[in-house]
């Protein structure tokens, strides 16, 4: 499973930007509209996409997309 690849359309949808490209190093400082509401919408979209349950704090503790990928991997294991 290429989690980063599956996260791309989620980020593009949440931030309404089809040209957005994320990497493992992408963090909230890199995307202007990445606020707490965007974080919530990412949580919900990720839960649905990967069929996992996240606590809001799980993602708050993730400092970049790479941490999110590892978190998703751990939930799917």
């Amino acid at each position: 499973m290429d989690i980063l690849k599956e996260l791309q359309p989620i980020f593009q949808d949440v931030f309404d930007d089809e040209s957005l490209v994320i990497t493992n190093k992408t963090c909230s400082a890199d995307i202007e509209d990445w606020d707490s509401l965007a974080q919530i919408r990412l949580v919900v979209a990720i839960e649905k996409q990967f069929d996992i349950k996240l606590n809001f704090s799980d993602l708050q503790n993730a400092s970049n997309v790479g941490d999110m990928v590892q978190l998703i991997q751990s939930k799917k294991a």
Partner: protein
Amino acid sequence: MENSLQLLKEELLRIFGAGTNERNSRQTAVLDAFAHVDNDLATIMERYIDIAQKNGDTLPFMAESYAFFLDETEKESLFFYQEGHYRYSTLEEVVHQVYANETYMKKYMTGLAISLLLWPQHKQFFVFFHTFLHEHCKRKHAYLEIGAGHGIFCSEAMREGGFSRYDIVDISETSLALTKKMTAEFIDTHEIRFIHADFLQFESEERYDVISISEVLEHVETPQEFLDKSRKLMKDDGRLYLTTCINAPEIDHIYLFRTIQEVEDLFASAGLGIDEKLYVPYKNTTIARSERQKLPINVAYILKKI
């Protein structure tokens, strides 16, 4: 900036982790808001802080209440995006959880009052309301406010509006108590009635020049009934100041408006026309995108009988 606002800013930054290596979005929002404080709003918020402190509230309590308000908003937002609807849908549920819970209401209303200073849409609405009072309300007789909440808006109506009579109706005793404190300076000079009631049960022979329903429609089960009754209580040349929100989860929001059109259809059905309006989409978005992505939209209107 006056001292009380500066001290409040420092308390907010302290709570949101100022001094750590990484600045978070809450700190940024506080710094941005305080960098662009309108003079009139600053005066009003200093007055609010002064009154609150005289009534025993501390600046740390105010800052903690605002943090609480943000936490509750995030919790309800998570629920909303997971489930597609607000958590509660009946008045009974929120009376029990919120309005009859004095401790919760005190923190909630205090946090909401602080958001007037920090949330762009609340600031814009305050300016809209102030302008309306200045331009339309001199030498008018009767003012009715439903859902006074923290009391800031009706205190400004008393200060600026020049009405002969003020009726303030709220379903929450805690809100009425807060409002009485906010308006204490006007008790001896203005004719004011504070009425603890569900507006739908409120009876009055009075017909009002101005009715204010600010952030109320989303808190009621039957907004159409609410508007129908409001229209009956308006003078023929009266005005209704109304604000509400779309896709905006809070713990006591029970009626979900999904589009602006849904709101404006209710006005038409109630025989109310739009004199003025202000739409505030979610920051850095458009109305179209906010509706499509179910992001919060705030709307304000001056309505008249048609």
